């Protein structure tokens, strides 16, 4: 067994007390890292691990979806009619565009193109906002039609004009108040038992996804501020990359949500 004293790498590191100022690296190198590269790799691995936790987090909702879809297909077939495929598809495209601009933003950061970086981040933000706007339209439509989660599921189309009138029987808006114990007590006689479960799952999935969009927007704004400040360059672009990864994951989730919720027959 040999016990050669080994120098922490990189070998020419005079500083043993590790005060950040004594490093002659990028100003963004934290004191406990030996090099920007180590820092970047750590951040990247950390981000991927975080994405792993996100996947597991969403898997619970996908599990609920799978269980109810296979045990009660009739609920899904009935209820998906109330979702607007066109809006869903538009939102899919919006998110895909935002993913592209995010990828372009990362690329710009890697090539030290500050202006392109800023523009792409702003475009991404606009798409994110658009996505939420469309989501808002969809939510408020369901809210007014009483198409809510199981405990509040009282479909009532009487005061609604437009796209979906033909789906539900015109309702006798008699029990639209209050909260009844069982969800099949609705004003839509064609609704299968417990049809509200679909909307529970719908709101959980899209709601959680929406929260992720909001969080992502926060992160993008933070990156945007820093890019305007001029923090990022080919030498230091980790945060842009990491936020990008997160954003793509949010997009990935939607790629599955769209067919699962909107495209059922």
């Amino acid at each position, binding site marked *: 067994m040999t016990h050669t004293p080994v120098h922490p790498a990189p070998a020419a590191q005079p500083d043993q007390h590790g005060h950040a100022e004594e490093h002659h690296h990028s100003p963004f190198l934290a004191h406990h890292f030996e090099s920007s590269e180590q820092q970047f790799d750590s951040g990247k691995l950390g981000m991927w691990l975080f994405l792993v936790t996100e996947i597991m987090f969403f*898997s619970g909702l996908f*599990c609920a979806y799978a269980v109810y879809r296979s045990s009660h297909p009739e609920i899904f077939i009935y209820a998906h009619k109330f979702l607007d495929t066109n809006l869903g598809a538009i939102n899919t495209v919006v998110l895909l565009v935002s993913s592209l601009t995010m990828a372009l933003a990362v690329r710009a950061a890697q090539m030290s193109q500050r202006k392109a970086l800023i523009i792409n981040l702003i475009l991404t933000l606009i798409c994110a906002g658009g996505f939420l706007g469309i989501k808002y339209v969809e939510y408020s439509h369901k809210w007014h039609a009483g198409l809510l989660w199981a405990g509040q599921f009282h479909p009532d189309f009487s005061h609604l004009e437009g796209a979906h009138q033909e789906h539900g029987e015109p309702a006798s808006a008699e029990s639209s108040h209050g909260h009844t114990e069982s969800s099949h007590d609705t004003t839509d006689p064609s609704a299968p038992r417990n049809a509200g479960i679909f909307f529970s799952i719908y709101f959980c999935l899209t709601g959680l996804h929406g929260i992720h969009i909001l969080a992502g927007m926060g992160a993008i704004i933070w990156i945007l501020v820093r890019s305007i400040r001029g923090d990022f360059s080919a030498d230091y672009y980790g945060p842009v990359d990491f936020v990008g990864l997160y954003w793509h994951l949010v997009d990935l989730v939607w790629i599955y949500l769209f067919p*699962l919720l909107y495209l059922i027959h």
Partner: protein
Amino acid sequence: MAHNTITTSDEQAHADGHPHVMPLSVLLPTFAALIALTVITVSASKLSIGAAEIWVAMGIATIKATLVALYFMHLRYDKPFNALLILFSLVFAAIFVGMALVDSQAYQPEISAYDLQQPK
């Protein structure tokens, strides 16, 4: 896997300290493919293909997801360990969803027998 500043023999992207920059010639076609697949999946859903439908839709979604992961997320050019992580999480998510699904399907008759007894 020991990865430190004196970099391992990783033939991967960062060995030379320069980032792997995605060329536009990859990003834009990826994007185009994603849009095309979206159009396909919407139109496929309009055909009535019955039970296979969900598998078609999921298949297309998976192709899209893979494209995003490989090119937008650089997974193809990244350390293989990161890809492994994602695969791992998918496997465990699948175990979770799969076992819970199989079980709930198997005891479903006991629930429907009860439901039948209840007034509609």
